[in-house]
């Protein structure tokens, strides 16, 4: 049992890790085909895993409704909307439109999902404004530098700003292409090395806490 829980996953990780690291260096069509079929397998496993996810979602909200926890009404709304959408989706054969006519399923997507998603995305503009207000308050030397850089970049990115402050266009490009890009690349080098090191640790079983911790 312990073999199936510990050694087996480590063995699979080692083999899969080595094979797919090697795959990167093999241009042969057989190698591409192997990657394609494994990707398809992953999609299939992902589809089954969704059942796991949805059952978790149903379980969590069923408990809330049963115990009448605070906000259990929202759980009820979730149940009603999810079951309703599944029923309507099955009724419409999963099609959003038939012969150019929108189905009830398509209506739910176009007139409920899309506007709700759009609303969430639109809120971002207000959140950016409030976050920018907080970070641009020049309360320290670093914040003052950030404020000055941000003002120059903002001026340089709009025609009116460049008209008022003609140098702002070139200076903002310099800030973005030299200062910003070099710092970003330094971060990316660190991230890449971290990724490779973590991959080595996982492939060779040095890092195994993702299997559920423990060192046995």
């Amino acid at each position: 049992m312990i073999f199936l829980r510990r050694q087996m996953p480590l063995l699979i990780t080692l083999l899969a890790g080595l094979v797919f690291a090697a795959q990167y260096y093999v241009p042969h069509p057989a190698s591409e085909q192997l990657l394609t079929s494994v990707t398809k397998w992953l999609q299939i496993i992902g589809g089954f895993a969704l059942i796991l996810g949805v059952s978790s979602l149903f379980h969590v909200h069923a408990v809330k409704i049963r115990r009448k926890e605070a906000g259990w009404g929202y759980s009820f709304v979730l149940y009603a909307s999810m079951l309703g959408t599944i029923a309507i989706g099955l009724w419409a054969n999963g099609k959003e439109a038939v012969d150019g006519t929108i189905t009830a399923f398509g209506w739910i997507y176009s007139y409920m999902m899309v506007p709700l998603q759009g609303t969430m995305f639109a809120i971002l503009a207000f959140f950016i404004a409030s976050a920018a207000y907080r970070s641009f308050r020049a309360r320290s030397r670093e914040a003052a530098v950030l404020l000055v850089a941000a003002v120059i970049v903002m001026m340089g990115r709009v025609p009116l700003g460049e008209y008022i402050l003609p140098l702002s266009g070139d200076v903002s490009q310099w800030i973005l292409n030299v200062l910003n890009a070099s710092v970003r690349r330094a971060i990316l080098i660190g991230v890449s090395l971290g990724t490779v090191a973590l991959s080595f640790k996982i492939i060779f079983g040095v890092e195994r806490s993702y299997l559920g911790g423990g060192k046995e």
Partner: protein
Amino acid sequence: MPSDGGGSLTVIWPPAPYDSKEVRYQILLSDKNGASDPSTFKVVAEFPANTHYIRESKWPWWTRPDAPETHQVTIKNGKGVELKDGKTYHVALAVVSGDVRTFTTVVQAASEPNWINWNQINNLFLALLFGGIVFYAISVAKKREIFLRRIPGLDAVDEAIGRSTELGKPILYLTGAHDMSDPSTIAAAVILGRVAKRAAAYETDLLVPHRDPITMAVCQEITKQAYLEAGKPDLFKEDANFFITTDQFSYTAAVDGIMLRKKPAANFFMGAYFAESLLLTETGASTGAIQIAGTDSDHQLPFFVTTCDYTLIGEELYAASAYLSREPIQVGTLRGQDIGKALILGVLTVGTLLATAGAVLDAQWPQLFLDVFKDVK
């Protein structure tokens, strides 16, 4: 063509004294059996005779099929050409000077796929070198203690959990937008183990909403093990890890709702994030929670830095496991990364000097060094 997946032919021929922009080369191809008259062949490429040298190609010096001043053209599938692996083709070259068209002898060639891309062998060498450095550093770390610089964001993990315990409020932990195939999600899951262990020790509730069901299943196991290791298996709740949805903004709305209703005292944002980062952290900030973020999504870092109390920037996310556990193996890996970074810095400096020297002196020899660090596909 060597190092490719098949479906291409490379034509190589020596430079001629008449090579100039006035003279043109034509590459001719025929797939008919026994074709011998090049004038009936299809023209698949035409260019001035002073172009298409091997030195202009992307091949590194160790895979160049001939001298740098030799001409080369690669015929690939597309634009009216369809090459089948194993099939014999007839190839010829035509020199066009004014109205005169001269043909070379016809040669036969067949394309075939290769098992190794020798162009990328430097990549493999560097990866193995880095791997060797990491394992060497691990062996050193097992023998003596290695200094770790302070990472305030990770020092604050205890503070955040302690604050949640004092206030009697839960801890909210997010593992990011990606699935378990992304190293940042794995790093987030590893840190979750440490956070869950402390949360179990302090008997504080933990909420881990997920966007990916497989990540949820993995994190459930990690959390369970953490509670066992903390000696509090009875406190483990199966639904501490729960799935919400794979949809970006639906997930964001749900987590924002959890933040506003349950008012967690500590929010952890680890892993990869996209446009939802600011929506999550700004809502968290409005509830007064202590917020710790850790991401390798460089495009989201400004938002996290602005709205969170502590941010693990890039590689610090991967260092978290070592920092929190202080295990020699983990710490050794960090030292290996640092040596790797020092090497990259050295290569950047030497490479810049050599590339400048190469440009100033119009010399090819700096390429011997520069090609080794090039990413050639």
